[in-house]
Structure formats: C-alpha cells, structure tokens
C-alpha cells in the first residue's frame, strides 16, 4: 500500500513569491493534516480536514496561508507571499476515522516525507 505522497520534496524560493505544496493521503483516509516543522522542533498542526471540510484551522496564519481539499482526497497548501520565517518542513499526514477501543479512542496518523521549503 502506498504511503502519504507529497510533492515537491524540496523548494527554494525568494521572499514574497508564492509557493504551493501538494499531498495525496493514503487511500481511504478521510482525515488529512498539514503540519509545519521548524528546524529543531516538533511538528505543529496548521489545519485538519475531515473529508473536504476544514474542521480545525485555528493555527493557520490566514493572512498568507490557504489550503484546500476540494474532492476530499488530495490537498494543496499555499503560501502567498512567502516570508523568510516560513522556511520549514511542511508535513502532510492522514488517518482513518477514529477507532474505538473500549471507552477510549485514538487515531494513528501516517506522515508523508515532507516538503522542505527554503525562503531566501
């Protein structure tokens, strides 16, 4: 089974330019996440989709960041315009609907390899 696919793997742009990242989740995973990982830090959630609906975008800087998942499958994350501080690895993850185990449930997230963005 193919894992989460992301492209491009690397992107170098000058500040103020636009950039877009693409993610194709694991087949059948209706939940999709975009994370940003700064150097030396853990990932931080930007946005979570349930099918085509963005159910948590509280951490997405909406002045310059946008995301879409039009058909509830693949997703695009865009930055326009990019700033120097946007240099980071952008990770996409997907998961099945939450599984129930007794009275506790959890969702296992599967991560893609990420896109490393460098803004000059």
């Amino acid at each position, binding site marked *: 089974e193919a894992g989460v696919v992301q492209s491009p793997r690397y992107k170098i742009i000058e500040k103020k330019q636009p950039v877009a990242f693409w993610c194709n989740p694991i087949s059948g995973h209706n939940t999709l996440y975009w994370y940003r990982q700064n150097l030396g830090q853990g990932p931080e*959630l930007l946005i979570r989709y349930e099918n085509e609906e963005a159910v948590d975008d509280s951490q997405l800087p909406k002045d310059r960041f946008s995301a879409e998942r039009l058909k509830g499958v693949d997703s695009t994350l865009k930055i326009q315009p990019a700033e120097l501080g946007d240099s980071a690895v952008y990770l996409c993850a997907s998961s099945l609907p939450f599984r129930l185990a007794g009275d506790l449930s959890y969702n296992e997230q599967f991560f893609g390899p990420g896109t490393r963005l460098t803004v000059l």
Partner: protein
Amino acid sequence: SQQGEEDPQALSIQEGENATMNCSYKTSINNLQWYRQNSGRGLVHLILIRSNEREKHSGRLRVTLDTSKKSSSLLITASRAADTASYFCATERYDYKLSFGAGTTVTVRA
C-alpha cells in the same frame, strides 16, 4: 505552542547500549505516542500508550506513563546504528489534537 518537552535534547550512545529519553507534558491527555524521524524523512509511529496504562512494550521499545507526574519515558534496548534518529513524544488530547515535543536526537555509535 508545544505541549511536550523531551529530555535530553541529544543523546549519544554506543551500539548495544540502552537509550532512555523522557517526555513531560502539561494538560490531561487521552494517550501519548512516540514517533521516530530519520534525517530528511517523515515521522513514523512507534508506540502508543493510553492514559489508563502504565507500561507498554513493543519489540526493543518500552514506554512508561505516569499521569500523576505528567511524564513518560521511552527506553530503546540493545541499540543499533539504525536507531539513529530524532524521537518525538506526542500527546493526544480528548479533542484528538496531537501536540508534539521538540524531540530527542539519538546518535548510536558503531
């Protein structure tokens, strides 16, 4: 903001030795998960421990959870060169949001 904090930030051990890293967190959780990230790669889920569990094993991994102290530890026994990676703890809250710590970088010397 990050919920978990790992300790130490970096760890260097000889092949065959055990590696222990700790994670502390701040709020109540549904479960705690450990992930591994090899250089330039995505995160791989290693093990999950629920809030009502105290210890869990998976192969050479042993995880403990102390909810009263809001802390967890990950032990890797008989380390191998392939264990060289960054290890992150991630806490899942009851709203299913996953919050990661800053990670521990482990280097296993041959």
